[in-house]
């Protein structure tokens, strides 16, 4: 099927909206749009970061997911207490595959679940005593932890526990940072507010800890911010930066440590990969510590080269030379990858629906493989994300914010993309519909996808999924035969 025209796409949106009641239709209408590159500000065409409509299937998470799951969770040498009932921590445990180096349970705790396991009596009488006891136990059982964060679940805010007071007292007792994070799940409309709350907690409780202490810096110090090392992403990014001569002081927060975060105010530039979840802290550091920040994109060789040059432009000639050297070194390798996979993937069409950064960041990587992104949308993006997306997407392509299960299915049925990239909740619906699907949150248990090394894996995975022979065998053989005969008879 050829690409839809602007009118057809508009008609498609109207058709999908048809089934909603009047009020719901009015609400959802604002979240669906046809891309128009001439628009400067996304506000004019799409509404985002609004409360999801009750009664429809949304794919969003909660503030606790944003704070514990995304921002704090990957800090490997801290223990993150899921403070509240046991489920939130257990069901989100290690699900994001934030890789790290270390011995789990000894000096790193990334894949473990620590919870205060609230019972009825804790809700009635308050859980502060339990929290204090829990921190004491953690200190005894895991003495090599470098700090503790208290990630509130919904009941903490509802019953009004004073986790700040407990944390302050415990921090003095164990002489380690204990960070209370007020990320109760009911705050905000999606995980996005959780990111913000987590950023604010880092700003208030972590960054000031090393102020005024000695730091042996170099003029080439940078921090990688907003890379969660999913499947090793931060590692394949970091080696490129180091190869061009920069010194990566801190990784936020994939494979990161609290010591790295404390040292971040001494770097020369903050490099932001996930703008949505970490721009708050970058803006804070720009104001308070005078550290400039820039966004970069390490998906696909074109964007990597562009980003490496843009990063190098902030430094002296030595780094600029280094960037060119790195690009030249990987260029033939990447050309080989493209030569191998492009013929198999050329012209295929992709629909994306991911979180807060990939809906626009991976477009370049698909384009490097000759593929086209025909629809994209964010679970929890804000206006500024859509501002940036509009430029990256082709004209008359679909934009959908906080898409509902129904809308997404209908869009895929009508647009008929060759590949859908989204999360685990969408995966099996589309696979059962016979549409090739890749998880773009967890890289479908593959990865890394960042950097040059990541692109080779990305290309292989896309080919593996799209050209899998199983898609031609969606019908049971005993159902297929009669049909063929019917056709013969008809002919």
């Amino acid at each position, binding site marked *: 099927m050829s690409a839809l025209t602007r009118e057809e796409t508009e008609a498609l949106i109207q058709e999908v909206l048809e089934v909603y009641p009047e009020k719901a239709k009015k609400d959802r209408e604002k979240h669906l749009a046809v891309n128009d590159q001439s628009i*400067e*500000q996304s506000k004019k065409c799409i509404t985002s970061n609004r409360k999801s409509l009750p009664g429809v299937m949304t794919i969003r998470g909660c503030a606790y997911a944003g704070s514990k799951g995304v921002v704090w969770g990957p800090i490997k040498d801290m223990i993150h207490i899921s403070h509240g009932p046991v489920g939130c921590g257990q069901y989100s445990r290690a699900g994001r595959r934030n890789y790290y180096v270390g011995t789990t349970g000894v000096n790193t705790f990334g894949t473990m679940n620590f919870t205060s396991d609230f019972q009825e009596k804790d809700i009635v009488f308050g859980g502060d005593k339990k929290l204090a006891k829990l921190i004491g136990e953690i200190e005894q059982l895991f003495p090599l932890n470098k700090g503790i964060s208290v990630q509130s679940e919904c009941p903490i805010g509802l019953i009004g526990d004073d986790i700040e007071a407990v944390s302050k007292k415990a921090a003095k007792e164990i002489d380690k940072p204990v960070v209370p994070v007020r990320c109760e799940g009911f705050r905000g409309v999606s995980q996005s507010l959780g990111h913000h709350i987590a950023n604010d907690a880092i700003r208030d409780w972590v960054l000031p800890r090393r102020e005024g202490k000695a730091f042996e810096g170099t003029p080439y110090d940078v921090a990688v911010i907003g890379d969660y090392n999913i499947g090793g992403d931060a590692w394949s990014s970091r080696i490129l930066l180091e190869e061009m001569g920069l010194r990566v002081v801190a990784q936020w927060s994939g494979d990161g440590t609290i010591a790295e975060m404390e040292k971040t105010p001494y770097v020369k530039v903050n490099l932001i990969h996930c703008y949505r979840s970490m721009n*708050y802290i970058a*803006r804070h550091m*720009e*104001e308070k510590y005078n550290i400039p920040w820039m966004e970069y994109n390490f998906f696909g060789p074109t964007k990597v080269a562009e980003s490496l040059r843009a990063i190098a432009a902030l430094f002296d000639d030595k780094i600029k030379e280094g960037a060119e050297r790195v690009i030249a070194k990987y260029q033939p390798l990447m050309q080989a990858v493209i030569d191998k996979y492009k013929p198999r993937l050329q012209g295929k069409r992709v629909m994306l629906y991911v979180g807060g950064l990939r809906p626009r960041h991976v477009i370049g990587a698909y384009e490097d493989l000759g593929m086209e992104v025909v629809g994209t949308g964010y679970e929890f993006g*804000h*206006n*500024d994300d859509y501002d940036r997306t509009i430029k990256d997407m082709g004209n008359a392509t679909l934009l959908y914010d906080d898409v509902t299960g129904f809308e997404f299915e209908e869009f895929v049925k009508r647009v008929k993309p060759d590949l859908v990239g989204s999360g685990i909740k969408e995966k099996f619906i589309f696979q059962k519909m016979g549409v090739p699907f890749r998880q773009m949150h967890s890289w479908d248990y593959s990865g890394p996808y960042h950097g040059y090394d990541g692109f080779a894996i990305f290309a292989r995975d896309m080919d593996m999924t799209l050209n899998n022979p199983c898609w031609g065998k969606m019908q049971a053989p005993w159902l297929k035969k009669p049909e063929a005969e019917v056709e013969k008879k008809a002919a």
Partner: protein
Amino acid sequence: MANIMIQRGSKTEYVFYLPKRDLEDDIVSMEFNTPEKWGGEIKLNNGGCYYIEPQAAPARLPISLRAKRLDAAE
């Protein structure tokens, strides 16, 4: 009153950022722009208009300020 941030821009001298609304826009005009008196009415590229209390120009940007909305774009 809203918390805003004013930064240096690439296209224009200043960029306006309103975190609550994710609004990041160039400032096309500022009523006072001298070292002694700085601020007043500021006009944004999208047509919005805000007021910040005139003050001595900040030594360093970006800076967080309180601003009054006079006329928003929407």
